[in-house]
């Protein structure tokens, strides 16, 4: 598409250098970018770079650090708590993401049916995503209480259990409990974005498949999934990104306990850097998350490329 033509008439009226500068797209463009770029450089790009540097120093809160090379990473590599947090992060991300995707896709398909009060149902479904995570996590904390858990109470009344479950006191129970809370929070996002994707699939494809005698399963497998795959790639990348770097749920429900069994890399870095005061070591843990994030972003990048190509867009 042709770029807007330079205004021809303007220089006749006003010819000072200043006003001519304002007619230039490049100058004006640069001026318009100033507020956004200033904030992003000062509070996003600079901290990102500072984070790399901090990870290689022994900075403590309130003190000036010395450059110590990779010493933080070497000590972390011998730190069993760090490796436990890596394991927990991967466990948390893998299980929560798979279930979120499965339930989210199923929910999207259900919401795509002819339903009464459809828009209201959709609005209700999105609530867990809208409400502040920490506040709903407090509700989960109470639901998982060791003495007054409503889940245990119901299971006992139903005769399935004889004693209360210690949700947050046992390492594996705690891990599954936070995974469940994460699924609860993440399903609406996956479902609603996939629903938006489903609504863009042309009904004529399904009509054609129907005439050819395709079954429900075949229509899902050969029309819905392929048409949805670009948006699935993007949604799941976002979902993995958010789950991998999650902090709020864990900090609220378990604070990393019992005995570090639910510490994620993000919560461990908070504990070491802010609670413990070792900014350098905390930053090193944050930096260790970056390779995983880059992998997720690359995945999203290729997903996006494919969607552009499929929609016949530019490049």
């Amino acid at each position, binding site marked *: 598409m042709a*770029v*807007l033509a330079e*205004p021809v008439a*303007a220089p006749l009226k006003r010819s000072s250098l200043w006003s001519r500068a304002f007619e230039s*797209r490049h100058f004006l*463009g640069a001026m318009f970018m100033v507020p956004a770029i200033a904030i992003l450089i000062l509070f996003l790009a600079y901290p990102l770079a500072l984070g790399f540097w901090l990870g290689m120093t022994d900075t403590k809160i309130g003190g000036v650090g010395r450059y110590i090379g990779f010493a933080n990473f070497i000590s972390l590599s011998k730190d069993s708590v760090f490796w436990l947090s890596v394991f927990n992060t991967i466990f948390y991300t893998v299980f929560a993401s798979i279930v979120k995707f499965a339930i989210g896709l199923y929910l999207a398909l259900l*919401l795509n049916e002819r339903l009464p009060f459809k828009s209201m149902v959709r609005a209700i479904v999105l609530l867990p995503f809208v409400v502040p995570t920490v*506040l709903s996590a*407090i509700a989960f904390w109470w639901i998982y209480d060791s003495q007054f858990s409503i889940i245990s109470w119901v299971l006992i009344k139903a005769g399935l259990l004889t004693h209360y479950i210690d949700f947050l006191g046992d390492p594996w129970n705690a891990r599954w409990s936070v995974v469940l809370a994460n699924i609860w929070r993440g399903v609406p996002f996956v479902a609603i974005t996939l629903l938006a994707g489903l609504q863009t699939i042309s009904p004529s494809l399904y009509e054609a498949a129907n005439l050819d005698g395709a079954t429900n399963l075949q229509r899902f497998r050969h029309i819905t999934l392929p048409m949805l795959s670009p948006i699935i790639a993007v949604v799941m990348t976002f979902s993995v990104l958010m789950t991998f770097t999650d902090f709020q749920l864990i900090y609220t429900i378990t604070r990393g306990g019992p005995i570090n069994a639910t510490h994620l890399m993000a919560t461990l870095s908070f504990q070491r850097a802010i609670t413990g005061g070792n900014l350098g070591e905390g930053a090193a843990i944050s930096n260790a998350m970056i390779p995983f994030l880059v992998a997720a972003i690359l995945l*999203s990048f290729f997903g996006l490329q494919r969607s552009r190509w499929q929609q016949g867009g530019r490049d």
Partner: protein
Amino acid sequence: MTTMDDQSVGMDYLESFPRKFLRVYLPLGLIIFFLLFPFYWMAVTTFKPDAEMYDYEKYNPFLIAHPTLEHIKKLFFETDYPLWMWNTVIVSVSSTFISLFASVCAAYAIERLRYKGSRYVGLAIFLGYLVPPSILFIPLAAIVFQLGLFDGNLALILTYPTFLIPFCTWLLMGYFRTIPYELEECALIDGATRLQILTKITLPLSLPGVISAGIFAFTLSWNEFIYALTFISSSENKTIPVGAITELVNGDVYHWGALMAAALTGSVPVVILYSFFVEYYVSAMTGAVKE
């Protein structure tokens, strides 16, 4: 969107109600129950007196025998909760407006002025969207401390735009792209300046996009936790999520009633805002992903 409704290729009416009930309504009902139960539990606990809350034998835990406002009263009059709410409002509103202003300018410049290198800047801003707060908070804490912003609203007002601007810019770029070029060309021929074009043509036409971005940005800053937890230390400067989790727990004594009241009343403002602007909110959420 309504035109796409007949997914089932017009055969829907052949399906009997019991079948559709088993195939659609039952699973949908179960999932919605799962999604809504924590809110129900939050509300029930908020209005339940302590005596009932800890006695499941005598009282059915799902119901409230004697509803009470005791917990809400305690929350509002015996804690700093009103201050937290005030801080949350100030921080969310200010950071949303700052981000919207910066994003409208940036998105217009990238999408319409097409200055040299604008495409790369657009891509860089999108990459900024992918940098999660949990790897930024440590160096940001050091910067906030150096700038003397520590433990004040300004620390949050200035740092929240780091995740709001990339999101809003990206969303607004998509909206600006849908406005026909010809309108701007007409205005240029009539002698309008770029600024006039932006304020009189592009902005009014992309108002839905600006509202979507604003609503989404507001809820994101209302919900933000890790920066607020790291940069704020005194109780009177905290936001609701941080105040609830750090100040309402005394050692091992959990005031569940007050905690649930805080969770409920802290959620209500965003839910009300959301209920008025559901369509905008959904289009912001799905738009950012679809682009």
